[in-house]
């Protein structure tokens, strides 16, 4: 629901970093989004497209989103198994429901790529 303000912060962070690194054109931005964060990749992409040209240095940048799923760990028998986005985390081995989720809450800018100033 707040993807627009988060995307604004992402672009602002990159704008500041680009200035520090003498980059005047950003070509690619990579974000890692955990599946159990409440951030929707589609909404982020919509926000990114809406900001196109603001700031100008990222006007032609490509947005790469990597989604990450958590791993479920059963606290009863220790079994580790894949996360079901449908929300049933019951252990397939012992039927236990006392679980721990490892990872899946990631929400960060991994990198961006850009061209340096005066580099012709």
């Amino acid at each position, binding site marked *: 629901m707040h993807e627009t303000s988060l995307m604004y912060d992402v672009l602002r962070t990159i704008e500041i970093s680009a200035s520090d690194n003498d980059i005047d054109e950003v070509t690619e931005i990579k974000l890692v989004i955990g599946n159990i964060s*409440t951030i929707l990749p589609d909404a982020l992409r919509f926000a990114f497209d809406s900001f196109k040209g603001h700031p100008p240095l990222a006007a032609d940048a490509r947005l790469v989103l990597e989604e990450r799923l958590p791993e479920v760990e059963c606290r009863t028998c220790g079994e580790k198994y894949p996360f079901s986005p449908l929300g049933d985390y019951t252990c397939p081995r012992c039927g236990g429901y006392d679980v721990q*989720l490892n990872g899946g809450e990631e929400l960060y800018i991994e990198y961006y790529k*850009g061209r340096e100033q005066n580099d012709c």
Partner: protein
Amino acid sequence: MNTIKAGSRMTVKRIDINTSVLANNETWAKKNARRLEDNGVYAVNLMSSPGSGKTTILQHSFQYLVPALNVGVIVGDIATTEDAERMQGKGVPVVQINTHGACHLDARMISGVLDAFDLENIDLLIIENVGNLVCPADFVFGEHLRAAVLSTTEGNDKVRKYPDMFRKADAVLINKMDLLPYVDFDMETLRRDVKGVGSRAEIFEMAARNGEGVESWCRWLIEKVRG
């Protein structure tokens, strides 16, 4: 930092910044945490959907908390000062934040109102978030404890449908227990689901409208504050 030569004219650099998308909020949250720590203030983020009873729980909590601790309250709502007015006259300073449409409080908003309190003389600051089971889960303030309220009338499915809120909670307060005979809500299922979404939260049952069960939550909280 990797440098990739792309063609003969342009150098494309890859900058690995590994910065949180929520970095802006986290920076403010760290500032708040330091300020709270410096003043010996323990902060609680109280969250739930609208109408589950956050304000009523607080109104009934004051009788147990206030004799033991100096308490302050920040209350967040999209509009009105109704909740702040409900909590007046209990010897507790209350500051209302109106978000004017925003669905959650964030660390910067909290930072903006900390000045309204005499922090040196506050032991426990309770922050009642905007009623919403989704977004507040993502925005930390620099608080020490997160409590999520769920009322029996909302139904058992809310824990499974909004797992993030309950997974991140240190305490889950089940309110409107007095209505249990009239609704399809089952405490055994609730306990199972809280564990089932990966939460280790302490669970409290209460009927805040008549004050039942509020004391045990307050006793637990006072112990937490006294560390």
